[in-house]
């Protein structure tokens, strides 16, 4: 067994830090406990106003926000958080089924929202759904000079995330980018 393939004791700096905001206190309690048991650091709020007041840039790997909340909706909170931390990665929680493509066509200004999570949800399913976002968030925060190793569960996930990662380099970091792979025909990427 090795440290990449089996559980290792994570140091605090290796742990993912998440922001969770939902006005339903029971949901906040259950999800935050579950995520903490899975080794995450969670700052959980049932008040979006308080969450916003405490929000700091470059602190969270991922924010999970309920869409429908009084006073400040998840969308409003997202916009305010983006002003403070433009690189923040966000997933929304919704009681209604909503597909990512459908969401992007309805809200083109929130094109960087990767995942809409339907409630209720088990912790294992939540982790499964947020894991790709956590990886892309970590890659998005890569700083010049870093040599990073990233492990993907499937080759399909690797290819999808490669394209996301290069898009961030091109559009947000003003870098030139290169992809070395045999996975997809180069012509398909070009098109």
């Amino acid at each position, binding site marked *: 067994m090795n440290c990449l393939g089996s559980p290792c004791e994570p140091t605090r700096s290796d742990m993912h830090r998440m922001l969770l905001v939902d006005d339903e206190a029971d949901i906040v309690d259950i999800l935050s406990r579950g995520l903490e048991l899975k080794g995450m650091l969670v700052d959980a709020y049932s008040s979006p106003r308080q969450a916003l007041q405490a929000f700091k840039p470059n602190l969270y790997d991922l924010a999970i926000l309920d869409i429908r909340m009084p006073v400040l909706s998840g969308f409003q909170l997202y916009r305010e958080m983006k002003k403070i931390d433009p690189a923040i990665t966000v997933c929304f929680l919704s009681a209604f089924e909503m597909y990512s493509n459908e969401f992007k066509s309805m809200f083109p200004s929130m094109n960087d929202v990767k995942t809409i999570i339907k409630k209720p949800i088990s912790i294992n399913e939540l982790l499964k759904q947020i894991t790709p976002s956590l990886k892309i968030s*970590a890659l998005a925060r*890569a700083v010049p000079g870093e040599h990073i*190793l990233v492990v*993907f569960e*499937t080759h399909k996930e690797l290819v999808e995330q490669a394209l996301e990662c290069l898009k961030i380099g091109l559009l947000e970091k003003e870098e*030139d980018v*290169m992809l070395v792979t*045999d996975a997809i025909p180069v012509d398909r990427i070009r098109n």
Partner: protein
Amino acid sequence: MEENGRIRLSTFHDWHKTDGKFELQKSITRLRKKLEQSLARGRKGFRCFEDMSPFFSLDSKHEGLRYESVLEKKFDLPLVAICAYTRQSIEQLDSPAIELLHQHHSRLIGSP
């Protein structure tokens, strides 16, 4: 974007092999040259995302490890190098190989 050098797409073979043989030092020299060209064009840096799977599917994992060991843990250049593995590939490596990967990367993402 490919024409003006902002994006480069390469197959594993084209990037790593010359006359069918691995030329890893040449890959690294080319990487450095790409970075210099980007900086000369006024970019902030260069980001390279490499799918490491072909090292495994071509039964060349030792070449892959040699490549990793030549790359430094951190660069004093505005280069972001991302080495992407699948879980299936990582599980083919023994403990010394994993230790080597730990030593030569500044960050590991996706470990359980």
